[in-house]
């Protein structure tokens, strides 16, 4: 009896810890008052509507979308062939390459951001947008390689040889036989990369410049000046977006198989 209640308590605390902040943000955004507070001063949806009218949010949302979509696509264009090479060929330093590719996950974002700023943006005079694009691509690349690699490893390499013996070139065998069989993994990598890029703060913090900010950075600076509940409303909307994406991916792809 005791152990049953203990386990229920632990599950309850865990869920509270995980979901609690989310609920607080949703409610804080629904405040009828002018300041961010919990519990909210009365209920209204005005802040949820207001976020769509803030011009800087529109701009930074567009930038974040651009970075998440194209950064991830670029990472896949680089990462899929890299994963293929690692899984199918006995390339020199294969293990080293895997480790190096994973580095942006292991190295703290603050350091990555500072390093990119100090050694890429300043000396080479890259524009802020280009630097952000390169940084986001690099950050997503490890996910692209890892996720695609795991679905490639589940695929028999005999299949490509069979395709070659039926008249395919090596490249043809890849596009006709390998790609259709790893498309679930590629899509999973895209979603994971998209979410990672979209929520990325520390690296973007260093690389944002005047007028060019990603959405999370823009929200930070907005909060420094204006302490109204719109940031909470926006956070809730973004969290909701992530949940929907992952839910749909799980439903149609069995997303959790790949991650």
């Amino acid at each position, binding site marked *: 009896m005791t152990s049953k209640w203990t386990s229920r308590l632990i599950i309850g605390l865990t869920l509270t810890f995980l979901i609690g902040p989310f609920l607080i943000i949703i409610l804080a955004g629904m405040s009828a008052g002018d300041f961010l507070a919990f519990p909210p001063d009365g209920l209204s949806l005005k802040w949820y509507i207001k976020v769509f009218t803030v011009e800087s949010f529109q701009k930074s949302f567009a930038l974040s979308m651009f970075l998440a979509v194209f950064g991830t696509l670029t990472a896949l264009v680089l990462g899929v062939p890299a994963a293929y090479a690692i899984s199918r060929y006995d390339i020199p330093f294969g293990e080293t390459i895997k480790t190096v590719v994973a580095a942006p996950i292991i190295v703290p974002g603050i350091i990555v951001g500072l390093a990119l700023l100090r050694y890429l943006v300043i000396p080479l005079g890259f524009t802020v947008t280009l630097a952000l694009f390169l940084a986001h691509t690099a950050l997503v690349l490890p996910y692209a390689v890892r996720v695609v690699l795991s679905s490639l490893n589940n695929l*028999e390499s*005999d*299949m490509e*040889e*069979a*395709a*070659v*013996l*039926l*008249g*395919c*070139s090596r490249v*043809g065998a890849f596009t*006709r*036989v390998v790609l*259709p*069989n790893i498309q679930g993994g590629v899509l999973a990598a895209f979603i994971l990369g998209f979410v990672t890029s979209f929520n990325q703060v520390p690296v973007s913090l260093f690389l944002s410049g005047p007028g060019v900010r990603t959405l999370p950075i823009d929200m930070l600076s907005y909060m420094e000046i204006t302490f109204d509940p719109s940031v909470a409303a926006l956070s809730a909307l973004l969290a909701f977006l992530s949940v929907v994406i992952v839910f749909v991916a799980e439903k149609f792809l069995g997303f959790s198989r790949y991650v």
Partner: protein
Amino acid sequence: MSDRFVSLQKLSLAYGQTEVVPELDLDIREGELIALLGPSGCGKTTTMRAIAGLMAPKTGKIFIDGTDVTRTPANKRGIGLVFQSYALFPHLSAFENVAFGLRLKKMDNLEVTSRVEHGLNTVGLAHLAARKPAEMSGGQQQRLSLSRSLVMEPKVLLLDEPLSNLDARLRLEMRTELQRLQRETGITMVFVTHDQAEALALADRIVLMKEGVIEQLGTADELYNKPASKFAADFFGFENIFAVSDAGIVGNKGSLAGTFEAQDGHLAWRPGAVVVGKGPYEGTVTGVAFAGEQREYVIEAALGQIKATTPATDKRYEIGDSVAFDLPLAGAWHLPEGRQGVLMAK
């Protein structure tokens, strides 16, 4: 009909620094069903991959139908390969799996359809054309893989362990099927196996390989009844092989005195040739197994282990029993040093 339809000349194969086949010469006749037989690591699969063009030889040449294909890429050689794993394309239906190679040839759709239908019919899968490979049984998958290679009308069809993934009943069925397809199409077939029974049952000729070298090449009859070496004899069921000395025969534990009339080399007996229950020698039964029509014994004797079988209707000995046995000269296979083996007759 060419006697050298596939010709491997001084072929040397290696994975990096590891040499697998030092120097191989082999001629395969047009329209024959030939088996590359040997234990794992003997180079049989490597040789097959070299014929297919999936690995480049270090030195030597490969001719197919009179043309040097040593430098021809795998996708231009016109060779079919049925993989041990079948290597079907999981995202395509049975129909599309078979159509895969035909479509690459830019054949028009009607032609593809009629060829695929014929191809599926040949292996009895016409009714499963819409299925995905995952929805088919192992035997069906293998026939699909076979059909996918056959519709391409390859000059040579290679098969990697074609029967090893099937259960006993399907194995017999597939064996008959392969022989029928080979007779009907006249395609030269080369199959790789480690199972001597499979090779004996299926092949016109058998190439027995050991450590990258051809140990013996001949018909099933020749290899079974006239093994040329100790290795070949052992592989084809001469389970009792002993060296001949002046005084008798020598096993790994000791020797057995007696007159064996052979001067040198080795004498070999099949388990069935060993006489159990009478004879000049004595041993202890250490193993007995009932195998339907016969009983299999392991007898520990002065020179080492003797493997023997007797008809199941004979007297039964138990583990620990002392038993008399004989290794009769008539029925022994003699492998003299450096000369051809002979059957001993008394």
